[in-house]
């Protein structure tokens, strides 16, 4: 019988380091040895991550495990294999999703319920049960406001959403459902680790100084540091006792360091790299010392010194933001009034984005308590003095450093944007977090991926899948871990002390506090070192108290950190919502106005803006934006199809060909690639090839809606209307809000001269995208063909108002004036148009025609000849015919007749022109 735990740990280790083959191999061995929910899940996860969906699904189906993780993974596999019914029944035992099942799902799936909801929503969307999908998405968002794509899906479904309500954390309960309780905490760390923040840097500094003192990397003279510290404290501290404390604390010998942690030592070199540029502004930090309960100073126990040291340090962090932490601690009291508000984190106004997320980082790192204690407890009595000194030294040292603006928060917050700004390396799902969960949640049921110790066992233990790491891990792991540990240690000490202080101010209890401080550490230590049970028992009570307080504390910190993200998400979501409602101008305004600069410049936000520009028919701007994105991130495929379509509209063959080449060389399995290639050939008028490529796009991803639409448009160009209609309908079935496809259907009907049907479908497209002047122009033309000329004029007026740059609105208005016999208005319109687009031969042709009708033969001839000059290839035979008819004014050319039939210029000349010119808002009509 194998011992599972180390094997599992090894498998997770393989998985986390992308050695999927070995993970599968080991998991298969494990599964043959022991067949349990856990091992099967592990094997399925290995299959899934090595992209063997079928195998994973088959395994889960065959073994039919009922644990929620297995069922969820089974459903996920089934969904990705497009077995929607199977996915549904895997999620919900009774078969089909219904509203009444939602609560059941929440019960059954516990902390992964939000993902189960999202999966349900996706299944429902595929199976055209939009209402259920919306319900599920809303529930998922409620459970986990971090699920951006649930929100994006809601927007795509055309749902009215209240971004402020969605992206906000009302209560800290949310964390239970959106961050996972234990092993899944890597999401948090991901977020925390990605944004290098000030506090964290300070911690690194501290740590470095610690370490450097201990290991003779002396960055500054410890004695001097102490003196400085002392001075500052004396200046700033009203409390005499605290002064005493300080002096008391000052005594330790500089050179003690023998007990230092090995891991600290080992990480020195790593830390050194990052620290130098980091900075602190801790001058202000000393201000808060008066709040520190310093009454314990007289106490001689070294442990207490350590506690106080931790306290000091805490306050130093608090003080970084310059506000008294009591005020800043907004949430703590609300959450647990029992907890003393000794503000781990100041709550600054999150408006500046940076500081909010910054806080988040500290909070996150502070979330995991006490790991350092593991190492330190044994050595506690000996090292305390030294520790204090080194800490102080660190603190002071921090002050001496200058502060470049290092931190950025860009990156992992928006999942589509891999963070390239943060130089400090990958987020780290660190061991500290997991240890912490073990420490106070008593239900440490996670595989410690990095912790192979076999005696961590628990009945409830279940291997949690880690989401595939988005970034590579690097040596920075250690660093971050250490940081966390440091914070945690301090947190703990502080908490312990506070707790005891609250209970009573007697010194007796201070002793207890000290022990409790040791307890928490000892507690965790005991898990590894198997400390004697007696000791643990004695300390249990205190440590439990500590744990509770700490838990509250951490919860509030988490909330604060998440609030920073939520603020950003709210802004992004507002922009996204506006875009999905095609309020593009407002969307651009909002995005550019509210999103912090470093986010605004990220590719994802930029592509949103590019998308807006594209929807505004401002293709030049869109092309500029997408070009920049493509240059900075050549491998980014998102929205490249939009880029290619913009290029198609602008007829930039070279750029489009280059883009198609790039993408084909990169990824032949993405529909985006083939859409781009198809667009390229479509622009070359090689329609057959274009159709071939668009069909390939459909093949590689049948769910990518835009490829259907493009295929349809291409087939319209080759006048294969029936096939085109099929594809447009396929697009509409997959996404009813895909207005391009509705527009395509309208185009087909208009080509078949079924104008009413055409208008109907154009209007459908317009209802989705109300601001699109091109659709309006087409509707106007349809109305014109149906002899609703006034309506047509109104429509075109609206189009011209919405988009003054759209020349076609003016042109068609001019031609309608012409057909109504309002020659002067038509001429005025066209002359204006001539100024905007000076080289359009058709404009000159129409002007010539009007002059001809008015009898201005010379002007007519002039314009005709200009028209010919501008279009020398004679693509429009009618110009030549017009010349001919000028030469023989009595004989009407057949072509002109054919055209004029449509216009019927004499029939409605008596129309009320004033009514026609009213700028009635077209939108209200529909």
């Amino acid at each position, binding site marked *: 019988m194998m011992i599972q735990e180390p094997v599992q740990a090894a498998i997770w280790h393989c998985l986390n380091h992308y050695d999927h083959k070995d993970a599968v191999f080991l998991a298969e061995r494990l599964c043959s040895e022991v067949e349990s929910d856990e091992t099967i899940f592990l094997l399925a996860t290995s299959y899934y991550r090595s992209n063997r969906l079928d195998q994973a699904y088959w395994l889960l189906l065959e073994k039919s495990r009922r644990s929620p993780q297995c069922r969820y993974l089974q459903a996920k596999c089934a969904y990705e294999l497009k077995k929607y019914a199977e996915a549904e029944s895997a999620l919900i035992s009774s078969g089909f999703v219904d509203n009444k099942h939602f609560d059941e799902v929440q019960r059954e799936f516990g902390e992964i319920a939000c993902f189960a909801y999202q999966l349900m929503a996706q299944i429902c969307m595929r199976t055209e049960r939009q209402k259920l999908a919306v319900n599920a998405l809303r529930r998922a968002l409620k459970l986990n406001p971090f699920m951006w794509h649930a929100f994006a899906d809601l927007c795509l479904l055309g749902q009215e959403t209240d971004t402020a309500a969605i992206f906000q954390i009302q209560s800290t309960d949310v964390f239970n459902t959106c961050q996972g309780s234990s092993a899944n905490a890597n999401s948090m760390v991901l977020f925390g680790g990605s944004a290098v923040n000030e506090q964290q840097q300070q911690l690194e500094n501290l740590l470095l100084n610690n370490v450097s003192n201990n290991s003779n990397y002396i960055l500054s003279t410890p004695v001097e540091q102490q003196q400085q510290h002392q001075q500052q404290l004396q200046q700033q501290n009203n409390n005499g006792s605290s002064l005493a404390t300080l002096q008391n604390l000052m005594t330790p010998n500089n050179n003690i360091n023998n007990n230092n942690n090995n891991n600290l030592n080992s990480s020195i070199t790593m830390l050194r790299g990052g620290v130098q540029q980091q900075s602190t502004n801790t001058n202000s930090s000393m201000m808060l010392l008066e709040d520190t309960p310093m009454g314990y100073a007289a106490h001689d126990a070294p442990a207490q010194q350590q506690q106080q040291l931790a306290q000091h340090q805490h306050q130093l962090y608090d003080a970084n933001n310059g506000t008294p932490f009591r005020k800043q601690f907004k949430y703590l009291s609300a959450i647990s009034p029992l907890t003393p508000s000794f503000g781990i984190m100041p709550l600054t106004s999150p408006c500046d984005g940076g500081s909010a997320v910054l806080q988040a980082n500290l909070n996150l790192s502070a979330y995991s308590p006490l790991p350092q204690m593991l190492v330190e407890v044994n050595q506690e009595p000996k090292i305390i003095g030294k520790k204090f000194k080194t800490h102080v030294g660190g603190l002071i040292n921090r002050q001496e450093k200058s502060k470049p603006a290092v931190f950025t928060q860009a990156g992992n917050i928006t999942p589509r944007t891999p963070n390239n700004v943060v130089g400090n390396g990958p987020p780290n799902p660190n061991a500290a977090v997991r240890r912490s969960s073990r420490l106070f949640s008593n239900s440490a049921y996670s595989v410690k991926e990095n912790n192979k110790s076999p005696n961590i066992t628990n009945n409830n233990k279940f291997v949690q899948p880690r989401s595939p790491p988005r970034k590579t891990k690097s040596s920075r792991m250690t660093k971050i871990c250490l940081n966390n540990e440091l914070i945690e240690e301090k947190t703990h000490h502080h908490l312990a002390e506070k707790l005891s202080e609250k209970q009573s101010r007697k010194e007796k209890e201070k002793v207890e506090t000290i022990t409790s401080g040791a307890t928490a550490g000892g507690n965790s230590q005991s898990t590894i070192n198997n400390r004697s049970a007696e000791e643990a028992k004695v300390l249990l009570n205190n440590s439990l108290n500590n744990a509770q307080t700490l838990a509250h504390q951490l919860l509030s910190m988490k909330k604060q950190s998440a609030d920073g993200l939520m603020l950003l998400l709210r802004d992004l979501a507002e922009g996204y919502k506006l875009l999905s409602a095609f309020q593009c101008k407002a969307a651009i305004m909002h995005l550019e106005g509210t999103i912090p600069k470093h986010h605004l410049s990220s590719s994802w936000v930029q592509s949103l803006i590019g998308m807006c520009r594209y929807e505004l028919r401002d293709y030049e701007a869109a092309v500029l934006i997408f070009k920049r994105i493509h240059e900075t991130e050549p491998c980014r495929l998102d929205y490249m199809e939009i880029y290619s379509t913009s290029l198609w509209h602008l007829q930039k063959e070279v750029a489009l060909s280059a883009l198609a080449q790039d993408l084909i060389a990169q990824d032949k399995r993405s529909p985006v690639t083939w859409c781009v290639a198809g667009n390229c050939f479509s622009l*070359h008028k090689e*329609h057959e090839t274009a159709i071939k490529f668009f069909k390939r796009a459909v093949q590689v991803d049948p769910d990518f809606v835009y490829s259907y639409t493009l295929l349809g448009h291409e087939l319209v160009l080759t006048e294969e209307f029936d096939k085109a209609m099929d594809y447009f309908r396929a697009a509409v079935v997959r996404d009813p809000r895909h207005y391009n496809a509705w527009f395509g259907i309208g185009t087909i009907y208009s080509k078949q001269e079924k104008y009413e049907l055409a208008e109907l479908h154009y209007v459908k497209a317009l209802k989705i995208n109300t601001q699109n002047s091109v659709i309006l122009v087409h509707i106007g033309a349809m109305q014109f063909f149906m002899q609703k000329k006034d309506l047509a004029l109104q429509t075109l007026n609206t189009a011209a108002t919405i988009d003054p740059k759209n020349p076609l609105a003016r042109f068609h208005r001019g031609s309608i004036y012409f057909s109504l016999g309002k020659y002067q208005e038509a001429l005025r319109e066209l002359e204006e148009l001539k100024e905007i687009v000076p080289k359009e031969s*058709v404009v000159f042709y129409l002007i010539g025609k009007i002059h001809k009708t008015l009898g201005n033969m010379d002007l007519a001839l002039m314009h005709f000849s200009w028209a010919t000059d501008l279009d020398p290839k004679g693509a429009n035979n009618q110009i030549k015919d017009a010349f001919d008819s000028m030469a023989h004014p009595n004989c009407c050319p057949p072509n002109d007749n054919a*055209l004029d039939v449509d216009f019927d210029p004499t029939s409605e000349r008596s129309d009320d022109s004033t009514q026609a010119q009213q700028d009635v808002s077209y939108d209200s009509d529909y």
Partner: protein
Amino acid sequence: MAATIDEESTAKPAVTSEEDPLAEERLGYVREVGSQAVWSLSSCKPGFGVERLRDNIMDTYWQSDGQLPHLVNIQFHKRTNISQIYIYTDYKLDESYTPSRISIRSGTNFNDLQELQVIDLTEPNGWVQIPIKDGNVKSLRTFMLQIAVISNHQNGRDTHMRQIRVHAPCGGEGKHYPLELFGKFGTVDFQKFATIR
């Protein structure tokens, strides 16, 4: 099967080797519709069949295997506007296999084919454009076209044809795209607003 050949209606062929049907297609005036049709041959040597006619490779050819006349039948699923046919032949390579007289016929099926024109080729080398006209109109709406090789150079029996392309006019006469009543827009400024996709 085929209509009788009217010797008098022989038309002068437009033989120019520089002509490239693709160029015209790219300009957007015409488009290739041969791919929508069903193609059949009167005969072929194994391995030199109809697919060689449509593979866009000038080095491959269709070779007939039987009695003159050799026929290429192009049947459309629906009535289709045809404005030109392009045939690629190469006298230097094919010599006595090169067709010298070609007849173009159209109809609704094999039984009602009417000859449109007969073209004489003299040592053609490259694309031969054959405009299809229906009276005054520069295109013909038809279900079926038949290209018949009546004779070859040097009295050759079998024939080689390397490529055939069939062109339909884009938005031809009377079939304007509704929003381009006055002809196609020439500038990008106009065209980019002409549609969405």
